[in-house]
């Protein structure tokens, strides 16, 4: 028996076990997709069969009718947060990387610690003050306001990821630019920024996902207003609609599309970012 196990484990048993583990983890997602495509809008039918007899798109049509405005709002916010966060993070990462070479390690250590700490500030502790400040600055219930607030999630992370990435660019390149008389700005713009594109993609993907998935600021800083990011839209769709849960689940699928795309096309960036952001500081 032991020998049988040893001989066949790698070929059959391990993959089957792996499939079972993955299947269990993804069961809720399967349920979501299946229910969003199921023909009946009555909820009782959802659990009747594991595989629906045929698929319809009516739930998605309904989700689009209901939520297309919030999809656009969320896209604008997420893209704005990417531009703002990466726009701030990229030069900062360059400055911190080069300062580390120039007798300024204490400055860099402090900066890294500050960035790590900002990631640990709970959003609820910020959002009360944001609400009051934005109220007076007329930024409540506005897309720019949400871009500014959502960047609190993305900016520190983007800086850390980009800094970790720039550390892997050989410094002979910047030395060469320096020897040729390039200014720091020129070196940054023409040498480092083009080389840092993979790092920029990683940072941008994460900032996008953070802002796209943000609920706290979307919920609090638009209270009572008509700017509705998709996360807030899902909640109101769900709480106002106890009949057609298929439509709600179709909206959930739409909200998950960016994650799915990133998983399909950007996985190595995600994995790299996870490790760089979490471990390398």
């Amino acid at each position, binding site marked *: 028996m032991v020998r049988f196990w040893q001989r066949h484990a790698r070929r059959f048993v391990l993959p089957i076990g792996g499939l079972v583990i*993955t299947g269990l983890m993804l069961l809720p997602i399967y349920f979501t997709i299946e229910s969003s495509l199921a023909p009946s809008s009555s909820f009782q039918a959802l659990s009747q069969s594991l595989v629906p007899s045929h698929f319809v798109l009516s739930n998605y049509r309904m989700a689009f009718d209901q939520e297309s405005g919030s999809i656009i709002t969320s896209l604008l916010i997420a893209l704005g947060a990417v531009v703002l966060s990466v726009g701030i993070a990229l030069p900062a990462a360059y400055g911190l990387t080069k300062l580390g070479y120039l007798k300024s390690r204490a400055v860099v250590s402090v900066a890294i610690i500050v960035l*790590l700490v900002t990631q640990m500030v709970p959003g609820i502790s910020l959002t*009360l003050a944001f609400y009051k400040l934005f109220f007076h600055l007329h930024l409540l219930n506005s897309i720019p306001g949400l871009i500014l607030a959502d960047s609190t999630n993305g900016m520190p992370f983007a800086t850390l990821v980009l800094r970790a990435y720039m550390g892997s660019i050989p410094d002979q390149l910047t030395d060469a630019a320096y020897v040729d008389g390039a200014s720091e700005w020129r070196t940054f713009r023409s040498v480092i920024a083009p080389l840092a594109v993979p790092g920029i993609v990683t940072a941008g993907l994460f900032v996008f996902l953070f802002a796209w998935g943000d609920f706290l600021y979307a919920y609090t800083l638009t209270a009572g207003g008509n700017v509705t990011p998709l996360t807030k839209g899902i909640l109101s769709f769900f709480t106002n609609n106890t009949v057609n849960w298929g439509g709600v689940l179709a909206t959930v699928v739409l909200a998950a599309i960016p994650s799915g795309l990133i998983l399909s096309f950007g996985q190595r960036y995600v994995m790299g970012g996870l490790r760089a952001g*979490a*471990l390398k500081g």
Partner: protein
Amino acid sequence: MNRKLPREELTPPERRATWSVRAKVGVNEAPTLARPADYGHDTSGRPARRAGLWHWVRLHQRQAALLAFVVPALTYVILFFAYPLIYGFTMSVERIGFIAQSGPFIGFHNYSVEINDPVTREALLNTAIFLVASLFFQFTIGLGIASYFSRRFFLSGFLRSLIIIPWLFPPIASGTIFAIMFAGQGGIIDETLQSLHLISSPIFWFDSSFKAMFVITFVNIWIGIPFNAVLLYSGLQDIPNELREASSLDGAGAWQRFRYITAPLLRPVSLIVIMLGIIYTVKTFDLVIVLTNGGPDNGSQLMSTWAYTLAFQNFQTGQGAAVANMLFVFCMIVAFFYIRATRRDVAAAA
């Protein structure tokens, strides 16, 4: 142009050599094993060989130019972290009703009111139980998955990449999925349990504090498993296989290999994973709002949602700010230990 470049003086040639070889060969060091000296740019304590006024000026010019690159980030951190946190503190020592108003200074009254409020105590207890249960199961299940997938087999890479999906979902989306699955009548979980004859009548998952907290914790565990699994997997990959092989040649069994090789070497990564898990978990907000909205009767409030409820729904903003600040202080204590645990990496990175 002065050919004596400060840059060359600052970086000793022998270190530059190792650095460039490292870059060419592409040797990736395990982050936790990185030593500051290997990064080759530490010149503190070394007298500049041709130090002169000119050199000093050039060095400081460059430092000033580089600091300018950091100024936007610094401005953002001051405006969107430091200032709101200070502002939030001043809100917590005032009597404020509606959030946009200001009120008279009342010292730490809001804090003492909230510490004696039974709902705050329940929220604190809920948060503690939620935290411990989430972390325990996320970590153990994540570690199980990580070690299972660290044995390479057919499809392992593909399946491993699918497992991170729950973590990439917007939490509000995951919360909505489970809110529908756990629905009291006609929810798929109740239906399944009934058809398996495990229960005779539907369970109403959200009618008691205990069940509501169970559901919230369950969903949070599901969300957190991938994060733990991915980081622990990479931690396992960093452990040299030779160590395990050597110990099994010495007659160590699977448990002994785990106990004496894997566990101690995985400790640094585990610490970081757990501390990041604490931070993510303690911030949880969306799940509670969509699953229970803090109910029934405030029975599933966490500190974060309770601060929100006080400020935005009960119009007791001062007290809400006090609760939010208590949560902030807790997070900063965790942050302190996180920085301490990673300080070698920070030093190496600088």
